[in-house]
C-alpha cells in the first residue's frame, strides 16, 4: 500500500506500470485518474487545491485500509496532489490490484467515493470572473450510501 500527497506532478503511466508490474498473482489492475477539466463557456485559468497536512495522509490511509478489509486486494496506491494545477493536469490517481476484476473495480470505486468527500481537500477554481471554491455535490455524499 502506498499513499502519496504531494504538490509535484506525477507520471501516471510510470506509476501505473510500476504498480501493475509488481504482482504476478494479481489478475486485475484498475486505475482511476482525475484530470482538471476546462469548463465550457467559462475557461479555467487554474485550480488550486488546499489540503490539511497530516489529516490528509491519515484519512487516505484509513480509506485504503478499509478497502483492503472489504475486498480481496493485493495492493492499493493513492496519489493526490495539492497546490496549483492547470486544465489537463492530473489531480490524483488510485490503483487497485486484485485476483479478480470485480474486487479491483469495486475497491477503486469505493476509494474514489470516499476520497471525494472524506479526504480533506478543497478545490478552488480561478477563471476570468475570479476565484470560486468548488461546492460539494449531493451526489457525492449520496454515493457513500451504497457501501
Amino acid at each position: 500500500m502506498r499513499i502519496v500527497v504531494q504538490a509535484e506532478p506525477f507520471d501516471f503511466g510510470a506509476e501505473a506500470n510500476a504498480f501493475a508490474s509488481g504482482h504476478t498473482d494479481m489478475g486485475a489492475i484498475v486505475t482511476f485518474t482525475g484530470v482538471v477539466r476546462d469548463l465550457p463557456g467559462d475557461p479555467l485559468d487554474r485550480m488550486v487545491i488546499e489540503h490539511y497536512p497530516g489529516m490528509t495522509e491519515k484519512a487516505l490511509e484509513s480509506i485504503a485500509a478499509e478497502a483492503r478489509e472489504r475486498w480481496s486486494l493485493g495492493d492499493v496506491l493513492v496519489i493526490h496532489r495539492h497546490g496549483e494545477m492547470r486544465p489537463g493536469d492530473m489531480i490524483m490517481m488510485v490503483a487497485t490490484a486484485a485476483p479478480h476484476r470485480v474486487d479491483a473495480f469495486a475497491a477503486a470505486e469505493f476509494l474514489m467515493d470516499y476520497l471525494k468527500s472524506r479526504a480533506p481537500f478543497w478545490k478552488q477554481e480561478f477563471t476570468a470572473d475570479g476565484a470560486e471554491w468548488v461546492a460539494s455535490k449531493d451526489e457525492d455524499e449520496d454515493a457513500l450510501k451504497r457501501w
Partner: protein
Amino acid sequence: MALNVLYFAWVRERIGEPREKVETQAATVMELIEELRAREERYAMAFSDLSALRVAVDQELTEFDAALDGAREVAFFPPMTGG
C-alpha cells in the same frame, strides 16, 4: 486548555487566518463554536450556517456535539471536494 484551532478553504478566508491558539474551557465542539461566535463578527459570519461546515478533532472527522477533553487540535472547514 490551549487548543490549536485550524481553518481551511472559505472558513480560513472568513476568519482571516489559517490557525490560532485558543484558550478555552469548552467541553464540546459546539461550546467552542459558541465562544468563537461571541468574539467577533468574522467568527459569527464563518460559523453562521453549521450545515455548511465540517469539523475534525485531532485530525478525525467528527460531529459538533463531540467532546473536547484531551483534544489538542480542532479544525473547521467546508465539505471536502477531493478527487
